[in-house]
């Protein structure tokens, strides 16, 4: 289990790169890397040379999140101005522009079947679900506010939702908030199930294990990565090692490792059997805002790939084996 640097592009964007995801391969082309930046552009890169395929403009303020449909045909990008732009990956034709004021937009993810787009709604303390056929808002999953005599503004801002993740079976949705709590929803019934506690600082990234729909990984500003049994409400383990905020977490397709990106400028690879960091990449010069494993599939693409993006404007590609 190791990472080997393949390619790095300095100044891939004009400004900090804040988001990255892989667009799955289609019959006509391999998987592409999709990145979003403070420079208000979204770019598509072709591995392994990280050849710039296209630059999408049209966002105002920084691009904070990107998401790709499992089919690989469409993708979404979201910016600080709270618009979500849905577009055709190959043509860049706009398909829809989504907004649900006053809710802002933070992380997004398509469900594994591709029928729903979940968007973390920030201060609205909810996750917005959009139908990918009609692009209509179908549900708003609200995080219950803590009970108390008077819900002061202090408390409510703590339930600010930052991150979302679908379970691999599509039945559960988890979201992470500024105050560190993670909320788990039953999607089918649009019902809040329970909180997962343990973090007390913002949870900026969540990912379910691709092989076990119960296992959820969370990345938090408290420099820890937690591994939860999201159904059993229990924490399996807490992993420490980063020297700063953990900004991003992704699980390898084989489910045996996770990668994290941190404000300490490193990318770490964690062996889930050992529950310890086995490798630290320090090629970035600033916060690493995103790490993403390439999903399997596509013609003749077996090799594992990990991409990382950073505030230093660069993007990096690694071989994962």
């Amino acid at each position, binding site marked *: 289990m190791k990472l080997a640097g393949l390619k790095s592009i300095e100044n891939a964007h004009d400004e900090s790169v804040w988001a990255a995801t892989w667009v799955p391969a289609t019959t006509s082309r391999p998987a592409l890397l999709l990145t979003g930046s403070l420079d208000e552009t979204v770019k598509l890169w072709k591995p392994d040379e990280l050849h710039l395929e296209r630059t999408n403009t049209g966002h105002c303020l*920084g691009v904070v999140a990107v998401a790709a449909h499992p089919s690989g045909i469409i993708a979404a990008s979201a910016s600080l101005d709270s618009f979500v732009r849905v577009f055709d990956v190959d043509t860049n034709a706009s398909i829809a522009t989504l907004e649900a004021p006053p809710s802002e937009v933070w992380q997004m993810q398509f469900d594994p079947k591709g029928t729903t787009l979940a968007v973390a709604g920030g201060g609205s303390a909810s996750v917005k679900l959009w139908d990918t056929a009609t692009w209509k808002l179908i549900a708003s999953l609200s995080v219950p506010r803590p009970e108390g005599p008077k819900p002061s503004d202090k408390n*409510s801002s703590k339930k600010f939702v930052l991150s979302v993740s679908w379970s691999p079976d599509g039945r559960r949705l988890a979201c992470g908030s500024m105050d560190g709590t993670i909320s788990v929803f039953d999607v089918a019934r649009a019902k809040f199930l329970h909180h997962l*506690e343990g973090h007390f600082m913002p949870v900026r990234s969540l990912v379910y294990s691709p092989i076990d729909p119960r296992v959820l990984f969370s990345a938090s500003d408290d420099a820890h990565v937690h591994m939860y049994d999201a159904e059993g409400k229990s924490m399996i383990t807490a992993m420490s*090692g980063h020297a700063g905020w953990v900004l991003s977490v992704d699980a390898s397709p084989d489910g045996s490792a996770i990668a994290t990106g941190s404000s300490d400028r490193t990318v770490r690879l964690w062996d889930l059997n050992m529950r*310890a960091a086995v490798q630290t990449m320090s090629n970035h010069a600033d916060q690493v805002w995103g790490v993403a494993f390439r999903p399997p599939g596509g013609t003749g693409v077996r090799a594992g790939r990990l991409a990382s993006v950073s505030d230093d404007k660069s993007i990096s590609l690694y071989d994962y084996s």
Partner: protein
Amino acid sequence: MASVYIPVQNSEEEVRVALDQLPRDASDILDILKAEQAPLDLWLIIAREYFKQGKLEQFRQILEEGSSHEIDEYYADVRYERIAILNALGAYYSYLGKIETKQREKEEYFIQATKYYNKASRIDMHEPSTWVGKGQLLLAKGELEQASNAFKIVLEGDRDNVSALLGQACVEYNRGHYSDSLASYKRALQVYPNCPGAVRLGMGHCYYKMGHTKKAWQAFERVLQLDPENVEALVALAILDLQTNEAAGIRRGVEKMQKAFEIYPYCAMALNYLANHFFFTGQHFLVEQLTETALAVTNHGPTKSHSYYNLARSYHSKGDYETASRYYWASVKEINKPSDFVFPYYGLGQVQLKLGDIKNALSNFEKVLEVYPDNCETLKVLGHIYVQLGQTEKSLELLRKATKIDPRDAQAFLDLGELLISSDTGAALDAFKTAYGLLKKGGQQVPIEVLNNIGVIYFEREELTLALETFKEALGDGIWRAFLDGQAKTYAVDAAASIFQYKDVQLFHRLQEDSFVVELPWDKVTPLFNLARLLEQMHSTETASVLYRLILFKYPDYVDAYLRLAAIAKARNNLQLSIELVNEALKVNDKCPNALSMLGDLELKNDEWVKAKETFRAASEATDGKDSYAILALGNWNYFAAIRNEKRNPKLEATHLEKAKELYTRVLVQHTANLYAANGAGVVLAEKGHFDVSKDLFTQVQEAASGSIFVQMPDVWINLAHVYFAQGNFALAVKMYQNCLRKFYNNTDSQILLYLARTHYEAEQWQECKKTLLRAIHLAPSNYILRFDAGVAMQKFSASTLQKTKRTVDEVRSTVDELENAVRLFSQLSASSNLQFHGFDEKKINTHVEYCKHLLEAAKVHREAAEREEQQNRQRQEVARQMALAEEARRKAEEQRKFQLERRKQEDELKRVRQQEEHFERVKEQWKSSTPGSKRRDRSEMDDDEGANSEKRRRKGGKKRRKEKSSKSHYEMEETEADMMDDQEELEDEDVNVNDGEHRNQRNDHDENENAEENAQELLAAAGLEDSDAEDEAKPAPATSRRRRAWSESDDEEVLERKPQSSPVQENSTELQESDGEIREDVDKQHGDAVVDDED
């Protein structure tokens, strides 16, 4: 059988007296001698015989009778015999005096002896034997010079006088002139080869003293041959044997000593040596008996000293320091010069050290060092003493010398290392490493404390992996290995319960059930704690937490472990747990100042101000006001309070500030190098407007704070940046903020980004300002104030762009974009305001929205205008291009004309020229008509506006600054409010600008009037209010206040970080343990202080 014959007076008869049958009562003989008027030599012979038989009383009786007055008269002409009797008596009393131990009797005897010798001298001044006797007497009295004179008188008369020669030899020997002494002995031997063994004994001693051991040996052997029972020769030989330092030699020596002891049980020398031997074999009872006997039988100073020393040593080794000290003292008192016999000084020093009498111990060891300047042990001991007396320099010097003299003395290196820890860690590390190497080479176990110390130094020097290895080596095998290697997996716990994982010790019970051995020896607690601390530093927080819990599982009173766990919980923002852990610590020790300080800090974080203050007070009281941290915390508290209450009560603010200053100063007085106190003082000074002083302070603190892993002081960077900002040095401020962000916060602190944005804003770098704010929003998404600020920045950017005299269409277009964004941001805020996310007034936001929309429309007009202008420009360019084309064409035509000139001549020439002129005219006409005259006027008008606006901006600056004293968020709002008002005015201007074409001049005048009025009002207002300059300077206040708070968080980490530093110090090396402990503690204190200093 020998007998003497006493002639019977007046007859030929003689009385035969068998010498071995002398009557018990000497009076019988005396009667005969007197009656028969026997010659005096017979008296002497009989007396001598009594002496030989040990009948001293009779001997004395006869001689005294023989020297009585009657005899003198009767035998007046028998001079020699009378002298001989007197001399015999003198010698007898000399001997008595010599062996007498009581001083008074001794004197008495000597007086007697002197009396007899003087009497003998009166009979014959020149009798050599009298002089020899006198010499011996003087020798016995220790008056060497006079003794020598006496012997010389004899030798002048007869240079072969054996007795005088021997006496002279003795004098020379005592004077230390061994070769002279030897010469005299030799001469005596030559003159009288059959002289008794004693002569050879003297020679032996001379040889011995001169270092000719072999010759000495031979001499003593010869004595023994002559007199097998000669105790002195036996003892001397035994000493020689003992000094061979070989087992066989020592055995022989002891045998000889024993023999000597059997022959004569009262030889002090032999007794001492035997005692010495038994001391080493551990038979203390014998030692005491022997030495006590020795003491009883001798009066010889050095020998007594030796005896006392033996006794003292015996008690010393038994641990009876009081008695030992008394005997050492007695021993020392018998010594004239320390160089004669230095051991008791050493022993006395050791015992005094034990009894805590450092000063005297010091002087004793100093004496030893004088005699043996290169003695490592003494050097080391003195080193320790100087540490205790606080003379570190001296101590270092001694220990360095010790290590230089014996570079293989691991202990010396260890001592040196421990001493250096507090002053020079690098050198300390070297010393420890050398010791480590020596111990390893010697196959010895390296003490855990040493490894611990080495580890801590590595830790301090940020060589973390080396530190890790060292701590692991110190700890060896144990349950911790399992955690370090990740073998023992944590058990899944309920997520809700996991909040309290840091208190959880269930893990260890489970491990025990799973047949792990959960043990932690006491001597490994400190290294384990340090290891955990190191793991924290290396961000392996989870493992560190398990190790701390392991310590607590076994040693529930280990307060520091609780505090570290609390610190970890606090770092993860789990305040509730942190407080609980601190309370656990307080359960163990409710006066623990560190725990109290931390509790206060947590309470402050929880916004429990009054409680926090109480807690800090308690912490301060728990240390009698000596704990700088608590005082500093109180200072900070007052500072916060000052900032907080400012709006409500200016008087209170001043009081709080004063109080804060006083507290900081108090700390500074106690610890002049306290960084945090200096920082605090700097803040208060800045608050009062003394920027130059505060800048100096901050700069110095910043310099001092860099370079230690345990001191993290981002605050001072920020404060410095604030000062630069306040002084208008924006470029430096920006640089300072950025460095601070990168160095301490991984670029993640949105608050500093806000400061940075504010600086950009002031410097009118709108794009940087906006980008910075967007980054801040990205980092702190739920901080809506940042969004608001971003909106304001964009609005301001747009407004300023529109005011620019020269602007490109692109600029105007981006202005429009920015305005649209601003509108969107403000509308979003407005829409979400009903959700109470933030404390903005909805109305105010709406005003912003309205204004931005307004501006937007204006901007759109501008854009159109600009686009129009651009189009016109393009047209103009087009014309120019055409002109150029025409020119080109003309040139070409010219050429052609020339070319054709030859062929076509002049016929067509006129026609073509006319045509061209016509064309040219047309072009000119076109160009003239397309130049719009209005443009210029437009522009000049803009200039006017620009002037007015800039004036306004200035005013606005003043207004803004006044508001900035409030807390940051507050201030942000106020500022924007101010901004908005100004912008509204600008808005009007803009309107005028754009729309009023016709009434331009009028409006302008009006505008100016208006401005003037406003100016006046502003001035009045300013005058009515406080000194605006002072307010200006107070600017960094809110920022610093927040910093201070952040800083106090980092603080108690510092407090805790004091632990690992002090821990090496807690552990001590082997020798002189108790006293060491004290030394260490002192160092610890100093160290602690140093750390505290760093804190401040």
